[in-house]
């Protein structure tokens, strides 16, 4: 006769739990400022040091700062799944800023002017001015400044073995491939990634841009201001991809390929500097991206130039202190420490100017490359179609002489990229 009663009792328990569960969020003593920080795996020791420094600067505040691991390249995915559960302060790669802003996950740093005034004695404008202009521009979306630039070397350039390829040959794809073929070795690049393959198009004057609604504007299936057509660029890429000395590398496989000794030149970034140094030995050299032959002329490739930022969660509980911590982790002395310990190129102008930074090979290459860099403004719908587009070229599925076919490939690529966000 009481069939349902046991179950009901359980329900009551569940409900009681629900009620108390909702009310008990504020139990923690309010004078402890707890902040969670996410940084890259390799940065953990460094960050722990810097956090200690931050705590020492504010001895009267009772901090409880936890450090967690989240790769800069995937931070967005984890954060957007549940913004409220994400860390208060996190490092991320600059290409994710648009999706993060779109989801309202990043604090607008201008809102916390009062905190800078009170604890740093300098306005946000001065903090921004201390960093390179283009890094601040990359951290600015719709005229709002959303993240503190932390590192300036999130881009790619050319590593090569100067025993195989001369400095002059390294200036153009034609030279590189010729030298590599002569040596029975290969030159590699990731084609199947929208981050890498855009460099051909940016070089020829094509652009991408972000619309207000988060969709992407792209003109690659048309004609660039310089008068090149998208089809011509694809044909040039096909020429490179079809060269016997060229090796198309899967995204994320670059370090592995360098280490295996299969390549004597590769387009990659400073994260591979160690691997390249080891593989190329005394021939290790790095320089800006090469030129490629487009319609009979040499065109400089123009990389998708990126930065690494530290942003603050818009839903952070202790947002004021989080903003200050983010600022601290990216200030001049922190950037210098970061360079000293991790060989990561700074964005802070004074830090860039130090002799040690100027003497670093890979960072010098990035700085050379920054002249030919474009801040890649694209929305979330760009990446998958761009990856497929690059893979089509890398696998040689497209026929160089079939201009109509190439055009229609470009058209459906553009169609996918410009699709409205669902």
């Amino acid at each position, binding site marked *: 006769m009481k069939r349902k009663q046991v179950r009901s009792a359980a329900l009551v328990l569940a409900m009681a739990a629900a009620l108390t569960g*909702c009310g008990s969020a504020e139990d923690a003593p309010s004078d402890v400022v707890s902040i969670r920080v996410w940084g890259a795996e390799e940065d953990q020791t460094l960050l722990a040091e810097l956090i200690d420094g931050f705590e020492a600067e504010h001895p009267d505040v009772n901090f409880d700062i936890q450090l967690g691991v989240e790769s800069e*390249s995937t931070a967005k995915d984890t954060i957007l799944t*549940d913004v409220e*559960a994400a860390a208060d302060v996190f490092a991320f790669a600059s290409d994710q800023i648009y999706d993060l802003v779109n989801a309202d996950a990043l604090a607008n740093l201008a809102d916390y002017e009062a905190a800078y005034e009170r604890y740093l004695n300098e306005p946000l404008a001065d903090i921004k001015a201390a960093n390179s202009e283009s890094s601040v521009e990359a951290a600015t979306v719709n005229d709002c400044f959303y993240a503190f630039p932390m590192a300036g070397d999130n881009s790619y350039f050319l590593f090569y073995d100067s025993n195989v390829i001369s400095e002059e040959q390294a200036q153009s794809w034609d030279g590189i491939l010729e030298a590599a073929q002569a040596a029975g070795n290969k030159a590699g690049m990731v084609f199947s990634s929208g981050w890498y393959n855009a460099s051909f198009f940016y070089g020829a004057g094509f652009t991408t841009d972000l619309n207000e609604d988060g969709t992407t504007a792209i003109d690659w299936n048309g004609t660039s201001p310089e008068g090149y057509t998208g089809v011509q660029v694809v044909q040039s890429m096909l020429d490179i991809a079809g060269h016997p000395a060229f090796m198309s590398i899967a995204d994320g496989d670059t370090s592995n390929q360098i280490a295996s000794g299969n390549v004597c030149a590769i387009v990659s970034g400073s994260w591979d500097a160690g691997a390249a140094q080891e593989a190329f030995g005394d021939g290790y050299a790095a320089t800006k991206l090469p030129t490629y032959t487009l319609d009979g002329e040499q065109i400089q490739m123009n990389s998708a130039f990126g930065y690494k930022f530290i942003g603050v969660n818009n839903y952070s509980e202790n947002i004021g202190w989080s903003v200050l911590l983010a600022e601290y982790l990216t200030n001049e002395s922190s950037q210098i420490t970061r360079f000293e310990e991790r060989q990561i190129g700074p964005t802070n102008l004074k830090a860039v100017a130090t002799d040690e930074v100027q003497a670093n090979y890979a960072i010098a290459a990035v700085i050379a490359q920054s002249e030919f860099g474009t801040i890649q403004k694209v929305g979330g719908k760009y990446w998958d179609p761009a990856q497929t587009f690059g893979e089509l070229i890398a696998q040689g599925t497209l026929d160089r002489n079939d201009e109509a076919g190439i055009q229609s490939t470009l058209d459906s690529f553009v169609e996918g990229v410009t699709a409205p966000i669902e």
Partner: protein
Amino acid sequence: MKKIKENRTSTIVLHNILIGVLAFIWLVPIIWLLCTSFSTYDGMNTSTFFPEQWSISHYVRLFQPDSVAQFPRWFLNTFVIACANCVISTLFILMVAYATSVMRFPMRKPLMNMAVILNLFPGMLAMIAVYFTLKTFNLTNNYLGLILVYSASSGLGYLIAKGFFDTVPRALCESARIDGCSEARIFFQMILPLSRPIVVYTVISSFLVPWMDFVYAKMILNAGISSQYTVAVGLYRMLDKSLINTYFTQFCAGGVLVSIPISALFVIMQKFYVEGVTGGAVKG
């Protein structure tokens, strides 16, 4: 007789060679795992099958925690979760199996039908809902939450155990009832002791769940604090793009270390599994 035997010597050899070849094919990746884990090289070795230099340095490193790899901690976490899950899941499964197999009540068949359909509903689809439910109760980044995820719905996997209980002769239960035994006593004192194979099978298989799962664990332990991870999440994260070149060999070493206890349990379990299944499904 003798003639036949002589004839067969060659076929026996062939037969065993065939098995040997198959076993070899099946074991190649496992051998590779073992070999690679003893390599001195950090990243993935793509040029040779066997490492050029052998060492146990990566095993040693597994036990010297750094910010990424905290293997002993992960192992302990997983062990605790596995034990808790094991108790709850086993209870749930046996309870449901007994109720549906031995007892008769009005909603039995509809409940069984529902259970089978729900059980095949892929957990993946309901992940976000489960996540937010747990978050409401403050159970994310919490082992209790993870244990609940693994065990709460485990009653749905009652079918194999039920199949076994079905083979326990009903006459036994009936006579016990006539003697005035309560259902609870029949369950605890008659059916359970008779069902050792299926109990062992259920215990081991629910113990193994947390060692294998990375999807749910990754979702619920999302604070990014490495020391909270389970073995599966921790190892999985070692293959992150930015880490694979420094941690691949450690991943292999970790994989080997996890596999040893699991293999042992598996070998024990398979015996009971065969008994349980033959006891259950077949006799019908």
